[in-house]
């Protein structure tokens, strides 16, 4: 909770289309200095007369602590609903309020162990920065990027710069291996003898990465994406069941205790049909006959 965070009236420096996404650079003085890979930032959307009150959260793709603009932040945004449409429609010099960095970053290994990074769609956005941090510590890094189709892959070129080897998969075979990231992940983990698999992407992918990693004796560190109203820990909308060191499952806030969790601690069994139930053994779970 003591981790530094700033709220800053940012200004759009650049908004570039990249495949199916928009790569936004905004000024965020003070934020860059505090951020670590895996953390996210929350953007207010819609301007002063906006009916969309809630912030939109995005993984931090990059930060530049100094330069012409005195600190900038990059995020990769997929236009989806009204908030992301507004953001991707921003022009240079437009104002956008940013809060960050938020959440817990990817934990870095103490030793220079081999690592595999897995990104699904825009989920790759935080990985290149992470890869650089890992390589600085001497960790060999391979990256697996997957997406539905080629235009939804993000950062293949950047990946090649920041990793020792890059593997690409697409569901439709429009680039790389046809299939899901798990089609290649086992082989990569096996060959590299990776100790950690870092992943960011859709929940189903995170679950699959966790399973494959466990099967290969690697620890999965996954950055989840739960629906968030506040992003700063005050609303309790973003909870999910996670088992603690004490073996007890609690509904924890993914915005402050996550978004990065150890994959084998997440109670994947609770997720089904787009709903996450409260496991019966969770602390404070409803008892038969009501609470």
């Amino acid at each position: 909770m003591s981790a530094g965070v700033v709220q800053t009236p940012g200004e759009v420096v650049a908004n570039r289309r990249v495949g199916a996404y928009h790569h936004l650079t905004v000024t965020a003085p003070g934020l860059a200095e505090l951020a670590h890979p895996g953390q996210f930032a929350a953007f207010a959307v819609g301007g002063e007369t906006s009916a969309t009150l809630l912030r939109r959260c995005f993984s931090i793709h990059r930060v530049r602590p100094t330069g012409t603009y005195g600190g900038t932040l990059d995020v990769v945004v997929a236009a989806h609903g009204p908030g992301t449409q507004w953001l991707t429609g921003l022009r240079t010099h437009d104002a956008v309020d940013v809060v960050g960095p938020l959440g817990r970053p990817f934990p870095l290994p103490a030793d220079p162990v081999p690592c595999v990074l897995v990104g699904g769609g825009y989920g790759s956005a935080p990985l290149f920065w992470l890869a650089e941090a890992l390589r600085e510590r001497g960790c060999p890094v391979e990256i697996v990027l997957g997406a539905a189709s080629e235009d939804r892959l993000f950062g293949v070129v950047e990946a090649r710069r920041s990793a020792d080897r890059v593997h690409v998969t697409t569901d439709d075979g429009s680039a790389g291996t046809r299939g899901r990231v798990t089609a290649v992940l086992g082989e990569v983990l096996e060959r590299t003898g990776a100790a950690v698999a870092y992943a960011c992407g859709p929940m189903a992918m995170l679950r699959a990465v966790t399973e494959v990693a466990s099967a290969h004796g690697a620890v999965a560190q996954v950055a989840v994406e739960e629906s968030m109203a506040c992003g700063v820990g005050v609303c309790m909308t973003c909870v999910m069941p996670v088992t603690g060191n004490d073996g007890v499952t609690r509904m924890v806030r993914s915005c402050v205790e996550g978004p990065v969790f150890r994959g084998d601690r997440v109670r994947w069994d609770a997720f089904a049909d787009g709903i996450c139930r409260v496991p019966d053994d969770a602390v404070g779970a409803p008892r038969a006959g009501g609470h």
Partner: protein
Amino acid sequence: MVDMSTTLAGTVLPNPVMTASGCAANGKELNRFFPVTDLGAFVTKTVMLDPRSGRPTPRMAETSSGMLNSIGLQGPGIDAFVEHDLAWLAERGARVLVSVAGNTAEEFGEVVQRLVASPAFSCVVGVEANISCPNVANRGLVFACDPVSSEQVVRIVRTRVPEGVPVVAKLTPDVTDIVAVAEAAVRAGADGLTMINTLLGIVIDTDLLRPQLAGVTGGLSGPAVRPVAVRAVWQVVAAMREGRLPTAPVIGVGGVRTGRDALELVAAGAAAVQVGTATFNDPSAPRRVLAELEAEVARHGVDRFADLVGIAHDRMVRP
């Protein structure tokens, strides 16, 4: 310099701006954005007797100028709350309005008893009985939907809280006659009233064609509901001014995003104002609203915030 202090049933607060229960957790998170001690009072997330996991997710849906939530009163239970959360607030010197609830009227009493017994109780400037929660003993009907249940809860809570520490009852707007519920609460001993809790709503996910919230219904909050909050405050304060129920201070809550929004509630009769959903838009919102409200008071050329409380009743043009 404007005197922003306000008095709630004998308790003087340095200013009238508070957090809203459930929209500010228990202080640590917002303290990263501004010192929570700056606020007139910090209102804690409603705490119940036992730890509660809350509802399944999705728990929220954005709506036009608002949101639905269905948290299900997730919390650590009163014992952990007083040990960790209240202690932290006490240490920092915050003035705390503790929000409590129970599945039954008796459980409200039990929660309050443990609260009062805790060493950190000294920081407590009041107890907010969140009676806008389901009464297990009455087919899950919300206490505040029924004057009789409301009365029962308030009576027990009032008995267990030491004299001099105000008890305020938090009402739901989802009733045909909020003045009747307010009256029941005040006659049962409530020293004040907080209005309003959320309105019951549903959002349908138009892709999946099913309710967006796992719990189906949720509470509607945010600027969208402000006119309903102002109306509730107005009606109850008008009834007090007409002598239809005993006078008691009102804490206004519902859709406050700016100092002007707060002033609406104040002019309608609220002696204090809580900032809820707006905090999700702007984590500094409660502190900012305080600054903006102070500027509004100054703009209107009065020296004391208290002079504006209920002023719209006096200024109203009678046709």
